[in-house]
């Protein structure tokens, strides 16, 4: 059996992305809190997953965004660079376009407010509900945090309970602690 060389493989993948033929591209990004799967559309980053099982993730993306999904490094490179800087404490704000087309209107509003919570600070589910103009929706805000499609970049780790307890995190509480500690928000 003749095998495709990794060079040829990479060349085709890059050409496919450059030609603008993909619904979404994804790649794996190594960080101190584990390997992440990062996916992007032409619009921006649409997904960051912890502990990814790529085959399952690709099926999901394919179902939600269209079947033209391919693993390509380049569309994810800028996010990779900024994540590296963030984990090396050289970056406190992400400058990345995001694609929230899969989130419903309320979720999108909450996620947009979430994006404004500054580095190294925490807020509460209730406070975020107020800022999203739904003061009684703290529980719904919790659900939105739990399903945050782009964790780390959209900093749901900075949202804690009203008593200061960490409550929960899509990527596991241990990671929430690690991120808050990295930012100096936890002593």
């Amino acid at each position, binding site marked *: *059996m*003749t*095998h*495709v060389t990794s060079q*040829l*493989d990479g*060349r*085709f993948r890059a*050409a*496919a992305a450059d*030609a603008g*033929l*993909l619904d979404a591209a994804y790649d794996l990004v190594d960080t101190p809190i584990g390997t992440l799967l990062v996916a992007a559309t032409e619009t921006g980053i649409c997904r960051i997953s912890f502990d990814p099982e790529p*085959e399952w993730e*690709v*099926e999901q*993306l*394919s179902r939600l965004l*269209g*079947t*033209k*999904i*391919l*693993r390509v490094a380049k569309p994810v490179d800028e996010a990779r660079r900024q994540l590296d800087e963030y984990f090396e404490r050289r970056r406190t704000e992400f400058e990345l376009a995001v694609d929230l087309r899969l989130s419903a209107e309320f979720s999108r509003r909450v996620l947009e407010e979430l994006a404004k919570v500054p580095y190294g600070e925490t807020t509460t589910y209730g406070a975020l509900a107020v800022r999203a103009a739904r003061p009684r929706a703290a529980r719904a805000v919790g659900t939105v945090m739990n399903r945050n499609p782009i964790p780390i970049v959209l900093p749901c780790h900075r949202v804690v309970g009203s008593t200061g307890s960490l409550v929960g995190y899509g990527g596991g509480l241990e990671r929430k602690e690690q991120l808050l500690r990295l930012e100096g928000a936890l002593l």
Partner: protein
Amino acid sequence: MMEAMAVPPFERFYVEHRDVVFGFLVKRVGRAQAEDAFQETFLRALRGWGTLRHGRHLRAWILTIAAHVVFDSAKSPPSNRLLQGDEGAAEDGLPAYAELAHLADELPPTERAAVVLRYGYDLPYAEIGAALGSSEDAARAAASSGIRRLRKKERWT
């Protein structure tokens, strides 16, 4: 079962078929040209991906595209190079490739691939069988059933 018929993510399709397609192209045009042909084949597949209505016969589909790419890069109907070394190529009454492709469009995908690869490109049945993931006999059967079907339409002379 229904799930298996759905159009898969392109990534999965690509990983499943890339080596077979590359092997096919290396045999057809040699390693030096196979790399460009490989990229062109899968770019064409990606451009056509949105028109697929199901995920069946994808091997036949991608090999037919690869055969088209080989043809286009040769810029002439089945070239001498393609004819070399084939056992018993049907040289008389070989329809123009374009006409064949047009006619064959109406065939079921596996028959279409077998007919196009055999009569458009003169691939031996053993190679067609291997490329389609079946046997030499199955490829022969698919091609002759495709030809029968075309004749029945009385558009094959």
